[in-house]
């Protein structure tokens, strides 16, 4: 009994402690860099908050991430609804729509969009041949194509938390609402939607945090012109050897992610999402 208790205690305390140590040690190292390179002080953080170029990159990142998050979550909500409440045939179709892109490499998906959208791509050639346009549209190597590619990647991630919450809704509640004379729209806005808020919020946070770290998709679909924070950090670390500033930027991103994770845990119970 005592031995079992011991093993149990060790497992309970040691593993999380180990996890924390393995995670925290490098993190503290990065923080150390951010306040010590090239010389001790907060100058890297000052630069992060005052340097116009860095602020522009952060603004661009925020704008793209917000656009991507809103679009992905809206699409995911519709997809999840049909996946959870649709007929068996529709469910199967939705599963295909959600899972097939989910399993295809991020690189292939980004290049796929280039093939479709570029000047001599499928879309422009089709529009030209039916006479809908006279000149090829510039669809790729723009912020638009970056957002499109990121949404395409992130929609499945947004579907899962929402669908999981929708599955837990007791359909009798909806029937009761209808039975008391509420219209379908009223029922949706006042009964169904509030019940799914936690799923929406989880999706928003998951997608936003993911989008924040995007690197490959903007690089391929942005024509090199859409530099976001992840690539900016990479540049500071590997191209310009500006480790202190890169570390400060990393800590900044981490703070944003941590704040969002904190929000997630306060508003909803994560364990509900994995039912």
């Amino acid at each position, binding site marked *: 009994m005592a031995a079992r208790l011991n093993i149990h205690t060790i497992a309970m305390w040691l593993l999380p402690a180990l996890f924390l140590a393995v995670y925290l040690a490098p993190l503290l190292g990065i923080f150390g860099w951010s306040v010590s390179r090239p010389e001790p002080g907060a100058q890297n953080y000052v630069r992060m908050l005052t340097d116009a170029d860095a602020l522009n990159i952060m603004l661009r990142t925020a704008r793209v991430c917000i656009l991507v998050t809103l679009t992905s979550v809206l699409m995911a909500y519709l997809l999840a609804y049909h996946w959870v409440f649709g007929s068996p045939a529709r469910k199967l179709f939705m599963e295909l729509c959600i899972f097939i892109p989910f399993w295809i490499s991020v690189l292939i998906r980004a290049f796929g969009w280039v093939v479709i959208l570029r*000047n*001599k791509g499928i879309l422009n050639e089709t529009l030209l041949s039916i006479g809908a346009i006279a000149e090829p549209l510039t669809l790729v190597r723009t912020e638009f194509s970056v957002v499109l590619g990121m949404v395409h990647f992130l929609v499945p991630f947004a579907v899962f938390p929402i669908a999981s919450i929708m599955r837990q809704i007791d359909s009798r509640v909806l029937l009761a609402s209808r039975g008391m004379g509420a219209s379908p729209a009223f029922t949706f806005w006042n009964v169904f939607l509030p019940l799914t808020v936690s799923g929406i919020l989880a999706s928003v946070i998951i997608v936003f945090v993911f989008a924040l770290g995007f690197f490959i998709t903007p690089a391929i679909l942005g024509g090199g012109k859409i*530099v976001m924070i992840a690539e*900016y950090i990479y*540049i500071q*670390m*590997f*191209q*310009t050897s500006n*480790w202190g500033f890169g570390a400060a930027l990393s800590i900044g991103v981490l703070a944003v992610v941590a704040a969002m994770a904190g929000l997630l845990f306060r508003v909803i119970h994560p364990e509900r999402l994995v039912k």
Partner: protein
Amino acid sequence: MSNFQRDCCELLAERFRSGKLDRRGFLTGLVALGAATMAAPGARAAGQELVVVNWGGDAIDAYSAAFAEAYEAATGNKLKIDGSGPLEGSMKTQFESNSVRWDVCDAEPYSAIRLGREGMMEKIDYSIVDRSKIEPGFDGEFYVPSYFYSNVIAYDAARFGDDAPSTWADFWNVAKYPGKRTLYKWMTGVLEAALLADGVAPAELYPLDVDRALAKIEVLKPHIVSFWSSGAESQQLLRDGEASMGLLWHTRANLTKQDTEGEVDWTFDQGLVSPSGWTVIKGNPAGLKAAMEFIALAQNPDNQVTLLNELGNGPANPAAHALVSEEMKPVDASSKENLERQIALQAEWYADHYGTALDKYLALVSS
């Protein structure tokens, strides 16, 4: 930091796979590039094995054994190649964490200079490496040229062939030469091109007036379809007509010319030429002598000509140009006559200013 070297390995692999290159040519090319496969970091006895880091692709893996044997026969040392690419940040990491795994790096000269100044790189031992086998004026304190490549004007010859562009002023002239442009995302050569377009004399380029160059690039920005960051991408932009003109590595420009049967052409006029450099991190496992011996062995003109034949990289050893075939002479970036048409990038300037200038450049690129 350029990925030119990685690009060379990719080219070799592409040509080998598509049957344009036989196995022997492929291997010789790899030998010349000093590239083979990823070496697993592991315990090894100093002096028994030499690790050269390059930008190799995974298609190279299968041939490492053959290559290593060939090298062993020549030197008695085993050779392992790591393909992870000696980015400045990566070399710095190895030095700082006291875990140097690479003996010889094929890196950017300005990275070698910068890290050399910080005391992280070995000085080249010119008692082992032969100064007379280096294009005069390019022997570095911390690096030895491994080969030359150039940033050139590639253009849509089908459209502009009658009055081909030959200066960066032409490149900026969208009225005379309509169409989109593409420039290099990691900036090497781009500021020089902009200043030449703005009327700065080649002899007066350095020190670069960064703000003036950026202002000139800003004027062109609405016409820039993409800032390419891989050689394959730059080729695609010209081949598919997405850009009517581009600043390309001459190797890729030449391939695009072959692919399009001359519909895309290029010129060495006002090309911005630079060596790639062998460099050694302090505390390399096989020891300084072994590293320098490898660099000396790589100066062999035959290998350098093979590299030119397979990829178009200009030999670093002036003696090699005499061995170049008539057919390849127009592609040889470092021959006397082609060097005369070009302007050399100044590694020292980059060592001093690359970081700050790149920050500004990328701010403009992404604005």
